[in-house]
């Protein structure tokens, strides 16, 4: 009984969460509307809508007995009703508070919210509503008639009810799980297509075998015929003549049988060919139509953005307006899902590094409000172009060059010959960031790498144009529907593998003598372009003894692009390229290096599909491994040293422990004065400092360090509880390389940041 009840409650909660999400979305949209300057009438209408949404949310919270949401909604409703009656002024501060409240409600939905935060929020909202004159008593909600109220609200609202009627007639709600399951099943029909094709090939083989047999029989017949003539002429024994006569007749009969079998087979083949064609077109049509079911308008993605942009902009004290175009264009929902993270990354980058502060903007004769323009346009073929353009300061190409040079990704000579586009592409390398300051938001150099990887997974491309002082535009070229996966079959060390066709630029035959070896790296040159050459056998660590049919004079190379880099992979054999039904490596999440998925062949065998991005990355790591061993006999052997300046003992020990376990030599100081003393006697590779400290604070320490010529270049990480953008700004101005907020401190990202700096 108990378990049944809780099961039912679980189901109810799922529905509640979904519904609450919709209400929250509507309230948030309304609030964003209100912040614009609306005509008085619309303004009132919007408040009315928000009020109703909040009311409905309260009702549903009560039905699942979600106390904290219920309580927040009650307060929220009070404020909104005061707005409605124009009893209190709608201030920017109150917008901020309400947006925060919505965030807290959505956190409370997943039960991941601190109860003290809820009570704090409730206090704050209450203080808002207390601004009104005491004489008016608020329409406080009465729990007993809540449901009734809810019903009346619905019928009172003509727009929403007509909307609901329309949607009831023409659309239905189906759970995503069901659709996904259905889609998987339907994709299996692709297998029928493959099977028919395979069967056809077998029949063709049979046909040619029969044809051979027929030819052989004809030859036999001629031989026997000659033999018979000889016998007749020589008039040898009659017995032999009869024998040959029999053989002749038999052969003749045999030819007839063979001929008619072949004719039957030819007819069968014709049928099979037709059937295969029918199956292929039906399956293709079915899958195409299915894909259309999964199409959703761009607005599904756009809707989620204004709220986030607003929060970010306020946090960083920037003024930003956002414009959307092309929200009607329909795209496969899997594409929409796949680009959500990249888009958020790009927008964060634009707000954090692209768009300048209002002062800076006014200074350089730009409107103080920055603009982010997100545009979707349908382009040639089955593609949509999605561009995210800001009118900020643009990407500093010189900075990318400097960072890449410093990290040793490119040589000075290479840089000179590089085009502007190639330089920008360097920013996609996972550890290049042009931002002079690392923040929790962005600038760690990972952003663009992730963008390119996710877009690549969907079979799309990224383009960037940037103009110093005028802004940056990222254009993602994406497929409208996910194309059926195609792959190239190769063999490596006696085992078959598949590489996604999308990532294979070309396949070439390379003479072994043309593979050049330099500094532990092999390269090949194709039409003037030079590529790193990596044998897949080595990369996948497949023993070489397996490949019996090793050729001595040439090998095949696949030019593979992944994560904006291109590498030539050596394989033993390249077979064919065709459509593939992709299957996961198991029911559970299985992530194996260099492996992406697998496919099942028509005979039931399994062939692994390789992950091109992993392959490219691991080949680069292999190279790095070589170079570091070269250096190891030199400077590399000594540990890097870090000075930690922090006055509270717990934090000091915590940071020390993290860094020591990450392999650094760590020394500590309790304040700026002690730190300076230590720094005068000992060299460090990096300093981590707090801001608020006795005797000398972190800003002063930073200032002092930057005036000392021998320490000027040393990276400095600020790690503090002062998280305001003003402090961050000050840190940047003084020349800190990273600014981390203690309250959202994560070990892993901290170590990563340190590793990037030294």
């Amino acid at each position, binding site marked *: 009984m108990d378990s049944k009840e809780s099961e039912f409650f679980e189901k109810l909660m799922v529905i509640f969460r979904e519904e609450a999400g919709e209400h929250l979305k509507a309230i948030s949209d309304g609030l964003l509307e209100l912040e614009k300057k609306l005509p008085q009438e619309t303004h009132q209408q919007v408040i009315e809508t928000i009020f109703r949404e909040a009311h409905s949310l309260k009702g549903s919270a009560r039905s699942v007995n979600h106390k904290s949401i219920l309580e927040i909604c009650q307060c929220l409703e009070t404020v909104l009703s005061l707005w409605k009656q124009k009893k209190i002024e709608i201030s920017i501060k109150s917008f901020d508070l309400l947006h925060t409240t919505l965030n807290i409600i959505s956190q409370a939905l997943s039960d991941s919210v601190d109860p003290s935060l809820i009570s704090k929020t409730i206090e704050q909202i209450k203080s808002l509503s207390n601004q009104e004159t005491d004489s008016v008593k608020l329409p406080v909600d009465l729990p007993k008639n809540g449901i009734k109220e809810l019903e009346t609200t619905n019928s009172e609202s003509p727009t929403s009810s007509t909307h609901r009627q329309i949607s009831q007639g023409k659309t239905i709600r189906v759970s995503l799980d069901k659709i996904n399951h259905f889609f998987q099943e339907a994709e299996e029909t692709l297998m029928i297509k493959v099977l028919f094709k395979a069967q056809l090939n077998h029949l063709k083989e049979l046909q040619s075998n029969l044809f051979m047999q027929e030819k052989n029989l004809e030859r036999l017949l001629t031989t026997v015929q000659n033999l018979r003539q000889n016998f007749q002429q020589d008039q040898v024994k009659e017995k032999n003549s009869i024998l040959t006569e029999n053989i002749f007749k038999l052969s003749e009969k045999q030819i007839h049988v063979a001929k008619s079998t072949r004719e039957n087979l030819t007819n069968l083949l014709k049928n099979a060919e037709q059937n295969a064609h029918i199956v292929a077109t039906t399956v293709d049509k079915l899958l195409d139509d299915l894909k259309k079911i999964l199409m959703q308008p761009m607005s599904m993605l756009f809707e989620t953005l204004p709220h986030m942009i607003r929060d970010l902009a306020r946090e960083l004290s920037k003024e930003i307006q956002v414009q959307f175009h092309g929200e009607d264009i329909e795209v496969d929902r899997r594409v929409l899902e796949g680009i959500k993270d990249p888009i958020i990354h790009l927008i964060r980058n634009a707000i954090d590094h692209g768009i300048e502060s209002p002062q800076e903007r006014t200074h350089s004769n730009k409107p103080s409000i920055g603009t982010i323009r997100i545009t979707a346009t349908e382009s040639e073929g089955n593609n949509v172009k999605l561009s995210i353009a800001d009118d900020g300061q643009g990407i500093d190409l010189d900075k990318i060059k400097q960072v890449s040079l410093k990290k040793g990704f490119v040589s000075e000579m290479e840089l000179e010959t590089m085009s502007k586009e190639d330089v920008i592409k360097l920013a996609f390398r996972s550890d290049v960031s042009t931002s002079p300051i690392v923040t929790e938001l962005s600038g760690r150099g990972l952003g663009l790498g992730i963008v390119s990887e996710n877009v690549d997974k969907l079979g799309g491309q990224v383009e960037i144009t940037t103009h110093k002082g005028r802004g940056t535009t990222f254009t993602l070229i994406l497929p409208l529907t996910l194309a059926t996966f195609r792959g190239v079959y190769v063999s490596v060390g006696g085992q078959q593998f598949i590489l996604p066709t999308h990532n294979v630029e070309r396949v070439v035959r390379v003479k072994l003598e043309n593979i050049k070896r330099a500094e532990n790296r092999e390269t090949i040159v194709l039409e003037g372009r030079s590529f790193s050459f990596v044998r897949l056998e080595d990369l996948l660590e497949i023993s070489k003894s397996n490949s019996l049919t090793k050729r001595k004079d040439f090998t095949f190379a696949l030019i593979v692009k992944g994560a904006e880099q291109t590498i030539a992979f050596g394989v033993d054999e390249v077979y064919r390229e065709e459509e593939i039904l992709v299957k996961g490596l198991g029911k*559970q999440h299985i992530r*194996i290096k260099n492996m992406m998925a697998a496919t099942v062949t028509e005979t039931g065998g399994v062939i692994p599909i390789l992950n091109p991005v992993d392959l490219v990355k691991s080949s680069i790591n292999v190279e790095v491994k070589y170079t570091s061993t070269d250096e190891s006999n030199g400077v590399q052997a000594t540990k890097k040293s870090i000075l930690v300046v922090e006055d509270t003992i717990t934090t000091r020990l915590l940071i020390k422990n993290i860094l020591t376990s990450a392999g650094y030599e760590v020394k500590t100081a309790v304040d700026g004065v002690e730190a300076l003393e230590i720094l005068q006697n000992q060299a460090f590779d990096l300093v981590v400092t707090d801001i608020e400290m006795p005797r000398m604070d972190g800003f002063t320490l930073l200032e002092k360090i930057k005036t000392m010529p021998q320490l000027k270049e040393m990276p400095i990480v600020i790690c503090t509880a002062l998280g305001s953008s003003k402090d961050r700004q000050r840190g940047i101005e003084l020349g800190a390389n990273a600014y981390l907020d203690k309250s959202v401190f994560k070990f892993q990202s901290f170590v990563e940041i340190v590793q990037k700096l030294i």
Partner: protein
Amino acid sequence: MINSKSKNSDEYKKEVLKNRAEILSRSLKDQENKIDTIEIVLFQLDKENFALETKYVKEIIPLREYTFLPCAPIFMYGITNVRRRILPIINIKIFFSLPDDPKAEKKLVIMENEEVAFALLIDGFSGIRRLSKNELQATLPTLTGIRQEFLEGIIADGTVILNGQKLLTSTHLVMDANI
């Protein structure tokens, strides 16, 4: 209904009650049986005898064709296709330091729950039996770490009972490479 006893007679009532009592007591006995015994699948890893509770086993099939997966953790023997579904093959002998036996007629024990499905590689299958729970002894204290984690207990003849629940939920069998 032709019956010598009238429906209302005391005798009839007594009989009915007696029957009821019997039925009630019988089903209780059955329940006791079920609680006290478990059903186990017996198999070999190398030369040693192991067992798993049948409720964790979906089926046992012979190992036919499988594909080796480079770069996978060593306990992943490969992947195989079971009715058009790909399953990872787990070689738990790795955890018990047992040698590979190339001559063994290898079989696969298919295990599955809501989230996880895999095929356990075994060297031979020798049947199913019922085991009374008091036959089960705690594992040897000398066994530690992963081995200890996977073990449910041991029975008098030396057969080691594996813990199916732990196998299905173990973090040691998660294949999540950090790239």
